[in-house]
């Protein structure tokens, strides 16, 4: 059993390394697309900061306790999480309905890996988003240092863990949106759903009415994607809130994996696409 796991891990990393080099090759071959992607993401970044900044200006300098720099740091942290997700996880999950539709899922299931790992290992890695990932990261570091929250090592460690959990929640949300394709191959609107829902994680939790805030923190923990790590670092949320949200996030992620395992069993290898 242990040998099987080790062999599976080795296969995963070998295939993933190959996929990474193939993706880089493909992306660099289409250099104009690379430039367009960079410009596209840069304008989106601009609109995010413009929207966030003008909102703070309208509020007179701070929104429900969040200062301008804190809102900017939150926007940048959301950008980091978003770009990381796009780079490494968007292709495997968002191509899923097409794989089900054209039967390519058969090949995924034949690989000596869990189907989700096989999807990740064999899908394109969007290296085109790496420059914007770096820009967002630099902006996040800049604003966090500017605010300079007085925090000990334990807070920074917890912040890092929350950031990782935030990406996992984003991944889990994408699974919940895309895996229904296993039940009906033309359920392709999941992508639109994901993009509509995922944006709610970028707002400070305090802007929501209490009931909605609790849902965003503890029931469907979308705020974990960015607002909880930032809120924790800037002392806008306390340990209890963060811990409960973190636990809820873990349940959300585990729930999404169980949902995927259940959904993938519905795949019948009978498809209508070409």
């Amino acid at each position, binding site marked *: 059993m242990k040998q099987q796991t080790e062999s599976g891990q080795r296969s995963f990393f070998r295939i993933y390394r190959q996929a990474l080099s193939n993706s880089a090759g493909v992306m660099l071959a289409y250099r*104009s*697309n690379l*430039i*367009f*992607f960079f*410009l*596209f*993401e*840069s*304008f*989106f970044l*601009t*609109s*995010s900061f*413009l*929207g966030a900044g*003008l*909102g*703070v*200006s*309208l*509020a*007179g300098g*701070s*929104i*429900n306790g969040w200062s301008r720099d804190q809102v900017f740091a939150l926007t940048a942290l959301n950008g980091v999480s978003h770009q990381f997700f796009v780079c490494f996880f968007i292709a495997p999950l968002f191509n899923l309905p097409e794989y089900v539709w054209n039967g390519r899922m058969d090949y995924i299931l034949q690989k000596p890996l869990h189907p989700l790992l096989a999807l990740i290992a064999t899908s394109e890695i969007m290296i085109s988003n790496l420059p914007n990932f770096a820009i967002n990261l630099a902006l996040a570091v800049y604003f966090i240092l500017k605010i300079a929250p007085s925090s000990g090592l334990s807070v920074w460690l917890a912040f890092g863990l929350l950031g990782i959990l935030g990406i996992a929640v984003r991944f889990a949300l994408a699974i919940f949106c895309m895996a229904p394709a296993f039940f009906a191959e033309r359920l392709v*609107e999941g992508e*639109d*759903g994901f*993009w*509509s*829902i995922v*944006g*709610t994680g*970028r*707002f*400070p939790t*305090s*802007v*929501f*009415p209490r009931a*909605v805030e609790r849902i965003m923190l503890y029931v469907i923990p979308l705020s974990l994607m960015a607002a909880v790590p930032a809120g924790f670092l800037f002392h806008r949320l306390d340990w209890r809130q963060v811990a409960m949200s973190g636990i809820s996030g873990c349940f959300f992620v585990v729930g999404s994996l169980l949902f995927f395992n259940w959904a993938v069993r519905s795949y019948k290898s009978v498809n209508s696409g070409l």
Partner: protein
Amino acid sequence: MRAVFKAAGLILSQQLSVQLGYRMAFVQVALFEAIGLVGTLFYWRAAATSGSGSGYSAAGIVVYFIVASSHQILQESGISRSLSMDIRTGKLAASLVRPFPFLLQPVCQGIAYSLSRLLMIGPVLVAIFVFVPALRDFFVDVAREQGGVIWLSGYLAALSLGLVCNLVVRLSLGLLAFDMTQTWGPELLFMSIFFALSGVVYPVDLLPVPAVQALSWTPFFYMQGLPNLVALGRVSAGALTAYLARGCLVTVIATFILVFMWRRGVRKFEAIGI
């Protein structure tokens, strides 16, 4: 000419039945959009509630984003993709032999799209604005201040200009396929610029006045910003006349570019397709 009008009528009725036939897909997408809108509404409502001086009340800001989302729903966005696909695959050749100008088809498709969306969201919007007292009172106040008929005429003119502008710009994007194999790069870039500058993400009049004046020389302002602001009664009659005149000029220039691209493209189109 009579044959052209007859063809236009037929295409329009066909497109309407197609668009209305897919109403379940629309409902699904609209539901996702509504979920996404929740975060934006709460963020901006919090901003308007805490601040003062910009003239946006909490009700005003909520109305702004409801109106902006509705305008976005009315605008056909897939038309550029289908046109570029027709050119790329050579399918345009079959359309060119028909006894009416080819561009009539996408134009009718755009009109049918907007009409069908209006039929679907119109009753919902009317219900929201009639049954939510704060929003209803907001419009009653605007109509009282500006004069009901003048305000409504100005709004309809701004909205119509926005829809025409959208159609012209989207068609021009699609025509890029005469020169490029893949047009999704410029299309994504356009979308990101649209989000950054049009007033979808934030009320465009929160920008400094020179920036708004500069934007009014671009189609983006007329596709979203102007109709949104007129709906909220934030543009005086004099300014609206000037904006409408400028908007017509921008649209005429954009139409000349569209016609130029079309004629040039059709001349070199070889109907090979890939």
